[in-house]
């Protein structure tokens, strides 16, 4: 169906954008289902309902939707106010504007108060490609992780986002959920996640030579990379660390005990995110297993189409595999 009379079916505009981001449907649809199930869920956004798909929530539950306009700081503080009345607010905007622009509101109004505010930072990492640094978020995990009392989750795919949202609903604490742009390939089927638990990492195979610790959008390419490496005869496993905080320390230490090497992969600065969190645990426990932190190396990303950026920064399957090969070969030398 064309977006205007006489236009080709491939032409698109904002109102058909969502069709191209099926991963984001899960956000609105899960929240809508939670309202149907009787949960006092309220959803809001800062003038991005077509970008994050919350238009679908608004259509199903207009009385539970709050449009904040382009006022991210106000949105976070208001969500905290809503939570004091017994509601469960889920507010969403670009991760850059949520975790950086409204950082202090998250810290002071949601975390310090320990109110059940859910913060959805979407289009995180470098998914906004050539929009540039203002729209990238390669610092959010590090910032959010350092806020006391804030749970930090980076689901790997739409199914895991749905599971995380459902798992979040009865939790008393504030939660930051970091997601991509809704075009991420599926890692899981819904049925795979019946035992999903916030704070419990998911192991995909055991690697004697290497375990890749991956989070969020990097889980899928990490699994593909591990498969390629295994085809070469290497023993490589992947740990899906969907919860950055509280970190599943036992799973990280178990991987360190099992594998000769560890490599963290995240669409984030190598400082302070998953790699930083894992390094803290390893050093605290005296684990001697070397950890290689892979991600954006403390620089502002170039601009470009996201897939090109992933290739450039070795954050696609081939790049992660190449990084791992160098690591393992270097270790062997």
């Amino acid at each position, binding site marked *: 169906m064309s977006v205007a009379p006489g236009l080709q079916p491939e032409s698109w505009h904002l109102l058909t954008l969502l069709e191209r981001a099926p991963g984001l449907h899960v956000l609105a649809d899960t929240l809508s289902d939670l309202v149907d199930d009787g949960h006092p869920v309220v959803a809001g956004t800062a003038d991005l309902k077509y970008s994050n798909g919350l238009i679908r929530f608004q259509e199903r539950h207009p009385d539970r939707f709050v449009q904040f306009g382009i*006022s991210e700081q106000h949105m976070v503080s*208001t969500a905290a106010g809503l939570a004091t009345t017994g509601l469960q607010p889920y507010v969403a905007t670009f991760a850059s504007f949520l975790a950086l622009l409204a950082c202090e509101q998250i810290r002071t109004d949601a975390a310090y108060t320990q109110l059940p505010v859910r913060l959805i930072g979407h289009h995180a990492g470098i998914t906004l490609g050539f929009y540039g640094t203002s729209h990238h978020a390669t610092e959010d995990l590090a910032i959010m992780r350092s806020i006391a009392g804030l749970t930090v989750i980076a689901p790997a795919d739409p199914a895991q986002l749905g599971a995380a949202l459902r798992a979040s609903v009865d939790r008393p604490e504030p939660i930051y959920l970091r997601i991509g742009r809704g075009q991420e390939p599926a890692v899981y089927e819904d049925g795979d996640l019946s035992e999903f638990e916030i704070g419990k990492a998911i192991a995909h195979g055991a690697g004697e030579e290497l375990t890749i610790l991956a989070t969020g959008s990097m889980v899928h390419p990490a699994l593909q990379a591990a498969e390629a490496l295994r085809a070469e005869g290497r023993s490589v496993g992947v740990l899906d660390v969907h919860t950055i905080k509280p970190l599943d320390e036992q799973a990280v230490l178990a991987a360190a005990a099992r594998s000769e090497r560890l490599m963290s992969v995240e669409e984030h600065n190598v400082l302070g995110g998953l790699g930083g969190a894992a390094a803290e645990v390893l050093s605290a426990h005296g684990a001697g297993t070397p950890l290689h932190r892979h991600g954006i190396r403390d620089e502002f990303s170039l601009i470009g189409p996201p897939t090109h950026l992933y290739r450039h920064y070795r954050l696609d399957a081939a790049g992660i595999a190449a990084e791992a090969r160098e690591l393992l070969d270097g270790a062997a030398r």
Partner: protein
Amino acid sequence: MTTAMSDETTAAEIARIEERARFARLETVRLISIAKTGHYASGFSCAEILATLYYGVMRLRRGEPDWPERDRFLFGKGHAAATLYPLLADWGFFPAAELDEYTRLGNAFGDHPDMTRIPGIDFSSGSLGHALSAGVGMALGGRMQGQDFTTYVLLGDGEQHEGQVWEAALHAAHHRVRDLVAIVDRNDHSLDGQIDGVTGIEPLLDKWRAFGWEAHEVDGHDAGALLALFRALAADRERTCPAVVVANTIKGKGISYMESEFGWHLGWLAPQDEANAIAELEGGR
């Protein structure tokens, strides 16, 4: 006869509010003497506003700080919390003796109010500019759930510098959040001096009106005027927009040498000076 009775009742209420405002100032002096530093002047400018809300306007239940139907109060200028704590203790929300350890290690009562530890504090504050947004959230949440409480948010005039105040002002007007009353304690000073010299905010009422609010101006130390205005706002069922009360006040009101001397934004009185200050406040009957 009825009118005369009602006037008499009101006169008694006004006297009670004035007496509680004096109590709040005296307690502020006492608490700051414990902490050895504090915001005398910021608390003194809003003592009548707080006393009027807590003893003449807000729907509250003694000893029940979490009563769901209570009116809400958010203290944007949270640095004046020492003037509010004694009123909350007076309402039986916590034992007054807890204030004797004000600001001591691990105590719940600090320079800024903490909702997680102090019964009766409806929202934590300290970072200027947040409270009106949180108040919008409370009022919206109440409306979504069919509750009819009113949310009062007391802002500083220096706080008007914060951009988030105006995000909240736009949003509240757009959504016609009518059960929301903002109060601006216009004491004309922020930390660095007179507001006019720091960054001017006038004409303030025009600004709020331009943002879609019903704006009123009142003498912030006149308990009778405050009581009449707040009650009229609460009784007005026709208003469809939020309301703001710009209360003209004197920073440091009640202690002669503190009045409009911006240095007293923060300070401490040595024992003899404190005794003299108490005498001056007690003499102001």
